[in-house]
């Protein structure tokens, strides 16, 4: 009959109205500033620079190779390469970024910089409360603002960070092994050379 559907609809809304006072499960609203949902692990918004150790300036993984700057589609990264070299976290002499700025008002969160970085130096952050009263300077993040410790990276993306650490450790181990092998080979060579030079006079004698 005409009007039946309207009555059914009215009953439904009445049920919702009363139910929202009775059962808490119906109210799915998360009241944001007080209540928060933990972000999922794959959350990303803007890039940050990873550093190892305690001192952000000394520990930056970035070696100012400028690949990310070149690859960035909206060109929001600005890097100034250093003239000198200084030791990185493992003590190797490297260039470093004298300036590293990211304009997050331009950044489109595409993560291409992260994908192209051969040093695992740039990663995506999850920090989203970035509003500021200065829309030019406030949104242009410099080196220091971008630097975040490896521990922080572990905190926001645990799985990914462990993978990166394992890979870096493996690479380092391989490099060390290679260096060791090279050193051994050199030592062996030196030893052999020494032996042969020692043997020569003997042979001459023979």
């Amino acid at each position, binding site marked *: 009959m005409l009007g039946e559907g309207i009555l059914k609809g009215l009953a439904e809304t009445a049920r919702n109205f009363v139910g929202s006072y009775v059962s808490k499960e119906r109210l799915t*609203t998360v009241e944001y500033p007080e209540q928060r949902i933990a972000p999922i692990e794959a959350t990303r918004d803007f890039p940050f620079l990873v550093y190892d150790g305690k001192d952000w300036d000394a520990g930056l993984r970035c070696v100012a190779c400028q690949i990310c700057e070149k690859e960035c589609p909206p060109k929001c990264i600005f890097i100034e390469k250093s003239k000198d070299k200084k030791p990185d976290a493992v003590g190797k002499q490297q260039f470093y970024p004298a300036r590293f700025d990211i304009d997050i008002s331009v950044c489109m969160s595409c993560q291409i910089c992260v994908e192209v970085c051969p040093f695992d130096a740039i990663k995506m952050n999850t920090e989203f409360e970035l509003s500021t009263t200065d829309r030019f300077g406030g949104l242009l993040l410099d080196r220091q603002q971008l630097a975040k410790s490896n521990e922080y990276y572990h905190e926001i993306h645990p799985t990914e960070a462990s993978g990166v650490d394992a890979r870096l450790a493996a690479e380092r181990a391989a490099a060390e092994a290679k260096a060791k092998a090279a050193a051994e080979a050199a030592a062996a060579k030196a030893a052999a050379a020494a032996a042969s030079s020692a043997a020569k006079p003997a042979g001459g004698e023979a």
Partner: protein
Amino acid sequence: MVEKLDQIFVLLSHWLVGFLPAGLQQAAGIVIGVVVIVCLYPALFALAVLMERKGLGRMQNRYGPNRVGPYGILQPIADGIKSLTKEDIVPLSADSAVHFLAPIVVVVASFMGFAVLPMGRNMVLVDMDAGLLFYFAMGASTELAVFMAGWSSRNKYSLLGAMRAVAQMISYEVPLLLSSVAVVMITGSLSLTKIVSAQNAYTGIFPHWYIFTPWGFAGFLMYAISTTAETNRSPFDLPEGESEIVAGYHTEYSGFKFALFFLGEYVAMFSISGLGTTLFLGGWSAPFSFLTWIPSWIWFFSKLMLSICVFIWLRGTLPRLRQDQLMNFAWKFVLPLSLINLLVAALWRFLGEGWQRWVFCSAILLIAYVFMGLQEARSDHFGPRSYRYAE
């Protein structure tokens, strides 16, 4: 004591007026009444907006506003401050005089209806003999204001909204009037105070409200449908249709002018609910004879707010109609049924007291309703629309 409490506002007004010289007393009494009405209904408007936002929220399993003050009760004040401090933009190509006048005309025309509404025993500003006629004349002038707003904005959405509004309001004005005419036929008077006092009688404990008669019930349903359309409320909110035409006739209004439109819409809702209360729900009379000790104005305003709650409930439930559905519904269903209702009201009057008139009148209305409902359901304009040239 009970008598005093019932008449408290009348006595208060008399007492205030008593301080003035005799020549000014009548005018001063009217001014006091006007001031009270002009202050009271915006306050109710604030309350209704809060109720609407909270109620709709709860119907959709949300909290609704809960930030300003405890449980968000100060939200209307925040809204008011917001609309007062917003920039008032008048489009360059708008007809600025008409654009300025339209919101004022909406509010004034909406308020005029209260002049003849009895809000309690002896609480009517002007006890006009042709009160109902005056009310409808004033109610119809809001259409003018809506069209003024839509036309002067010089905006296609505004104009479309205004066109829709005028078409809809004029179409639904007819069943609105016809459903009220049934009441006039039975009461034999256009005076709203007479209509209320005719309903202020009891059989046993039950009141003689017109809604408890077959023709009154049908008339009330028709009236409720027409008022929802008249006040542009969901599901008949096509003139505003946010999803199609931005905001309809008030697209080009901002700041306090927009707030005035908003106020006008709610005041119209209050006044038309008040009229519905007066015509069908016994006005200020108590629902049971043993409750007559509660002051009459409490009954009037509780019935008014209850109607507002029903408006909100409907808005939370029903989706918006299509323009052709709206028109078909008005002219092919509501109008014939209110005409039949007129006939039934006449029958009721002339069949005399007794059980026969109950049976006859109910049967006629029920048959008409079921038959027309089936007819409506069968006809193709309720299904999905077919396009002749598109697709």
